[in-house]
């Protein structure tokens, strides 16, 4: 942390931002720059790595080290950065197609290894840069250029996937909820391990209003903002809550039940039963969970690699090149 007060301009590069006017990516960029300022990170210690897609232009707009790489491979490249130098602050900017379709394998493995990096997943449920094709998170039935009669494919939920792969920090926000988004980005970075920030954000051009259900004020019925240790209450009047009826979650009117019966959020429980339940709620009957869904501690791969290297070196001593070249079995020809 620096004593100097840093504002978000410190993290903006000179490059002109070229997303469509009104694109949800602007909000994410702004909140990321604010989060870096909140965290007081030195510009040179931060690396933004991205894949391909609208959201992957992100690094160009950050006054940090940045690498705009290949479609789907940002997490694999970020893994190399982070394992080579575990002192760096590594961020991945990616989208639904980039992270979950072509890059799905790297997403799963980065989560499983608990690679210490923040993954900013900007999910607009559409391929934007190729001008409007169905994406891995698109709803079944959606009409796009490649699904003119409606998509016959099932959507993939990155929160469920991350939980299944053992991610230690899983969170979600809309792009419009700037306060929550900034808070999550800060928390994600402070967390030691793989940190997913799943952002529901609008594509003005090819998939406008897809998340209105979760962003419009009059639709507050459909979002549940989780707070650790707090009861799960939601609704525009904060009059609804979630209870368990046996193993089955139910939405109730808060007034109708004993307040002690309302489920209390616990993101830090070692098991992932509650986060898994929250990520599996059918959204026609339940609100979409937002905030920190899971946050548990775990060993990080990059740090473990460094630690193992240090342990082996302290046990065997620093390697001597000449000895390495000789090996253990030599013979001499006179």
């Amino acid at each position, binding site marked *: 942390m620096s004593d100097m007060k840093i504002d978000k301009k410190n993290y903006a*590069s000179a*490059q002109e931002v070229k997303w469509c006017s009104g694109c949800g990516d602007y909000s994410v960029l702004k909140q990321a720059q604010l989060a870096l300022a909140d965290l007081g990170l*030195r*510009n*040179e*210690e*931060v*690396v933004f*790595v*991205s894949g*391909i897609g609208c959201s992957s232009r992100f*690094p*160009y707009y*950050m*006054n940090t*080290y*940045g*690498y*705009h*790489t*290949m479609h789907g*491979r940002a997490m*694999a*490249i*970020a*893994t*190399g*950065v*982070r*394992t*080579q*130098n575990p*002192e*760096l602050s590594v961020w991945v900017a990616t989208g639904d197609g980039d992270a979950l379709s072509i890059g799905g*394998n*790297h997403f799963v*493995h980065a989560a499983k290894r608990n690679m210490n990096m923040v993954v900013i997943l900007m999910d607009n449920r559409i391929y934007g840069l190729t001008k409007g094709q169905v994406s891995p998170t698109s709803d079944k039935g959606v009409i796009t250029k490649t699904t003119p009669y409606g998509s016959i494919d099932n959507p993939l939920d990155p929160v469920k996937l991350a939980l299944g792969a053992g991610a230690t920090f899983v969170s979600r926000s809309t792009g419009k909820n700037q306060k929550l988004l900034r808070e999550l980005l800060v928390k994600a970075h402070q967390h030691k391990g793989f940190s997913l920030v799943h952002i529901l954000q609008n594509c003005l051009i090819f998939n406008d209003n897809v998340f209105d259900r979760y962003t419009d004020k009059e639709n507050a019925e459909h979002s549940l903002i989780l707070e650790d240790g707090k009861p799960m209450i939601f609704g525009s009047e904060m009059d609804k809550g979630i209870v368990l009826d046996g193993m089955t979650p139910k939405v109730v009117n808060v007034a109708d039940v004993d307040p002690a019966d309302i489920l209390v959020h616990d993101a830090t429980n070692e098991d992932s039963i509650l986060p898994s339940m929250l990520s599996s709620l059918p959204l026609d009957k339940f609100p979409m969970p937002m905030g920190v869904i899971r946050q548990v501690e775990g060993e990080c791969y990059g740090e473990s*690699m460094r630690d*193992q*290297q240090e342990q*082996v*070196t302290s*046990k*065997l*001593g*620093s*390697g001597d*090149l*000449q000895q*390495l*070249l*000789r*090996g*253990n*079995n*030599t*013979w*001499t*020809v*006179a």
Partner: protein
Amino acid sequence: MQVKESGFENVVIRFAGDSGDGMQLTGTQFAAAVAQEGNEIVTMPDFPSEIRAPAGTTAGVSGFQVNFGKSNVRTPGDFVDVLVAMNPAALKVNVAVLDKGGAIIVDTDAFNAKNLEKAGYESNPLEDGSLEDLEVYALPITSQTLEALKDSALSKKDRGRCKNFFTLGILLWLHDQEPDYSIDYIKSKFARKPDIADANITVLEEGIAYARNKGVPQAQFKLSDKRLAPGEYRNLSGNKAVALGLAAAADLIGLNLYLGSYPITPATEILQELAVLKNYGVKTFQAEDEIAGICSAIGASFAGALAVTNTSGPGMSLKSEALGLAVISELPLVVVNVQRGGPSTGLPTKTEQSDLLQAMYGRHGECPMPVVSASTPGDCFYQAIEAARLAVKYMTPVILLTDGYLGNGSEPFLVPKVDELPDLSGLKREVEPEGFSPYRRDEKTLARDWAVPGMPGMQHRIGGLEKDYVDGSVSHDPVNHEKMSLIRQEKVDRIADDIPDLEIFGDQDGGEVGIFSWGSTFGAIRGKVEKYRAEGKSISHIHFTHMNPMPKNTAEVIAKFKKVVVAEMNLGQLDQILRAKYLVDSIPLTKIQGKPFREDEIANVIDKLL
């Protein structure tokens, strides 16, 4: 025994058995033992792609061939003098490689009706006269092994597994070799299992005694009058040599080595070797797939490592998009391709040189990359250092081509002194924030500045989009793209000023025939050319290590020969390149059988030209 008597040049022995019989170990141990005596050796493992195919079947036969002699041993040998066949299937698969008059040692215990049937024999070849031209030593190896261990506490299965060391004992006796080296090896290999070590040493010594008592004749040779050059040697396979070369290069340059890799035959040994070297500052990352293997290496390079990825066959295809990223990002990276038979899964455990055109051109866009190749297992060490040197000096990905034959084969390697290795200190240029731009270039090499995350004042963004020539920002300007394409090409072309000229082995002023080759065909071609020249023929050998760019004198050397022959284990890939670049009406000499050239195959083409 008809094994070559004194005055022999070399002896070729092939060990063959079930995949689980330990023939690779027996062969390796025998090779190491004869190398101790100052022999030249070349070895070639020959195993199936199945790990343990059903016991007793021809699909499961694993072989290990060693050629040793006093001088000019350059290949694993075309034909075999002694075949060790641990079962009928091993005999069936290998009997064709025996010269008439060669010897066979078989384990008679394995020649039962069941195994004969599995191997597809209708009658027992030990009894039906089909081997009458050969000297057959039918020995009850399994039962003698069990007999030798009758007092051992080991299980019958474990006792039976010692038969490969009994076999080794027979071979050591046959070639009058001392068992000391093998005994030391067993003691260190089974240091934690002393009962197994004792059992193996017992059967090794029993094997020697049994051969002596049974009157197996010793070949009348004890080497040797002409030997390897004086010095300290170790046995080294090409894969191990690549690993050592990369570790050495990182040490010499002053960077830490980072390998991003995914298991694939026959390249995986490089990952395994480097994974051990954590106390040498080496980091190895076994990735989730081939793409993540190279991508993690590119990420590590971006963050300041000497980064490497290694693979074979299909893995190289998977990496090609990322190679493009490394080229446009102008980051140092070494890509080791241990070539194998293709396309697709092809012949995964067999050798081939069929990825040359892919290495040269197999990427989208104008995507030039330096390519170097190794000629012998030991040369893999030096070419790995060369690939790393070019990568860091010129800020570029470099492909190092070896192949299955080099990777798995081994030879005595003269241990170099560290201070005699290339001086690579200062290869990595210091960069300063003053006037920094990510694409600021060194005037001579055209290498761009390598600022890595953590360095203050040099934050920058690079990536797969075309960059502005001056400030490195994203640029779609058409003229700028052409300028950048040309500078990337120019950078690779300038390497020609920094590599050795082609050398002519033979007639310096040229002559009738020049055989041009590259990679692992070196030994086979050089050996045959030496024989032709001893007969007074006008034939020379020119061997490439640098495939892109090619040495500056290539055109001049080609022009010296009336007939230019291009020898390679593919359908004529270097031939196509030389034709296209140098307008030469060259003659291809090719083979694509997953096996190195034999002398007679070279002669079939060359005899007609001389």
